[in-house]
């Protein structure tokens, strides 16, 4: 048995132990997400437009992550709508930034690995960098949207007549509680995945200027800061979505 299969079995066993049926669903959502991710890469390799493939895949990935979580219907629908809006906003930030910073493709640090590979494959790697940045932010957006929507849903269920303003204040309050720790999730993920790169920089005496302008470092930093912006935007946008829904519900059945 391979190590990946064995780790997968350990994870599945633990998830079932903790979550029962929900544990199986959560595990499946990761497996299906992987399938969709890999399938998207294959589609891009067949020269389908990378950004369109990524956007379509992202909507599917978001819906799987959100609807297969154990949040209530009201919370999941709100979280899904909010994360789609944030996805659009992030794409509007990512595309100009990636063209501005031109971080697509590979850096000098990759030279050794690229040995023997043809790099002139006719696919624009700037677009691939855009796809990478979009995909790496998805998990963070989905998680933040679910957390805030679930919290607000709790409040709305207990408090049918709550006003939009009060709900907004509650959303920001919940947001403040989750943001500190959500930022940590992102930054430690970044530190972890860039550890080898940082050791490389230090070992080869890169100056601060060289690090900031380094293609690979800049690409990773852009991905993580964009995710951070996504998480921050989740707070007002999820709350707005929830108050729209609330208004519609209150208008439908007055008392």
């Amino acid at each position, binding site marked *: 048995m391979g190590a990946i299969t064995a780790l997968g079995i350990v994870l599945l066993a633990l998830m079932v132990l903790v979550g029962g049926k929900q544990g199986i669903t959560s595990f499946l959502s990761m497996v299906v997400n992987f399938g969709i991710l890999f399938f998207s890469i294959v589609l891009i390799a067949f020269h389908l437009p990378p950004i369109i493939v990524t956007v379509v895949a992202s909507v599917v990935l978001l819906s799987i992550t959100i609807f297969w979580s154990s949040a209530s219907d009201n919370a999941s629908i709100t979280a899904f709508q909010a994360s789609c809006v944030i996805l659009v906003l992030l794409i509007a930030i990512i595309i100009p930034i990636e063209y501005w*910073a031109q971080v697509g493709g590979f850096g000098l640090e990759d030279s050794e690995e690229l040995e023997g590979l043809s790099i002139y494959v006719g696919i624009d790697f700037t677009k691939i960098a855009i796809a990478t940045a979009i995909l790496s932010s998805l*998990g963070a957006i989905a998680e933040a949207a679910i957390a805030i929507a679930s919290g607000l849903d709790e409040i709305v269920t207990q408090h049918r007549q709550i006003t939009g303003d009060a709900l907004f204040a509650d959303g920001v309050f919940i947001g403040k509680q989750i943001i500190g720790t959500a930022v940590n999730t992102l930054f430690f993920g970044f530190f972890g995945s860039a550890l080898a790169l940082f050791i490389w920089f230090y070992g080869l005496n890169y100056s601060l200027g060289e690090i900031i302008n380094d293609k690979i470092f800049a690409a990773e930093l852009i991905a993580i800061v964009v995710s951070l912006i996504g998480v921050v935007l989740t707070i007002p946008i999820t709350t707005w979505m929830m108050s729209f829904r609330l208004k519609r519900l209150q208008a439908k059945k007055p008392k």
Partner: protein
Amino acid sequence: MGEMNSKLTSKMTWLQVIGVVLFCFLTTVVFMHNDALYTQPIFQVSRVQAGKKSKMTDEFQNVDHYHQQTLYGEITNGRYAGKHLAINNAYSDSHAMDHHYLKGQKLFITLHTKPHLHATVKDLKRDAPIAFLFALAISLLFVILKWKGVTVIASILVNTMLFWIAIMIDHNNDGAAVIMIFSVLAVIFCFVTLLLVMGWSKKMLVTLSAVLAATALTILITLTVFALTHEKGIYYESMQYVTQLPKPLFIAEVLIGVLGAVMDEATDIVASLATLKAERPELSKMQVFTSGRQIGKSIMGPLINVLFFIFMAETLPMTLLYLKNGNSWQYSFSMNMSLGMTSSLISGIGIVLTVILSSLFAGLWIKGDER
């Protein structure tokens, strides 16, 4: 009253939007004119002349185009500031290792003085877009979170410094005790971060012990699984930017990577259980544990996906290149995505263990009469 209130907030919002735009704009302008800070010569392109375009096909029938361009402009810093130069550059449609430079861009160049002053392009100057993005993130944190934003930024700064110190120590040890160094770092990271997020309290100590126990147990399980399966299917040689022994480095990467998520989750669970126990002190230890499991079960799935996307998305360019170089799906996966997958699974194990341990510790140690 309500209307006045909303008028006031909307006025505030406009001021804030103007503030954010102004701050981002100023930061960008400053970083666009900081050339004097660099010792490397910088060159600003004022005119681009497109040259020959040629078609090329590699052995896998990938078609690409190669373009020549001549860049005219002047050097903006150092002893040759003000000198005008023409530099030749070439780029492909795929931009994998080259750049298509445009008018107005600033580039780092290498100057050659013999036989006469000429230069070659090294790379694009990309500090302005990075600074812009940072300015945007920081101002949004302030606008939406007010003072809470300061703690968030402070904790990032402190952790970045700690991280850099650990890398210094690691380097001075020639990478001998990577796991040891980063385990100690992990403990300090957790302590500092939780102190900033929760303040000094019993809740914080419970969270800290849950985080540390869960992380340690995760590494233990990982090493056991690796030993039992003889690490079949783990291709350390596919790790990027490795300058020292890859296996301990990989473990250290996963250890640091999962830490944030585990802290995130443990904070949530312990805080909710403490509130629950304060409201209903009659709950038994077992009931507290069960509620913790309920909370954990709903957050663990989305949280695992956060790290899954961070670890997997960055493997995309290289996997694509492997596929385009005529490699099979399986080989492309093994050489590029298998380590990301392994990291995601290990993080998943850590996240699930945290649910169990933080519920357990909260059940055992949190008493109802504490505030």
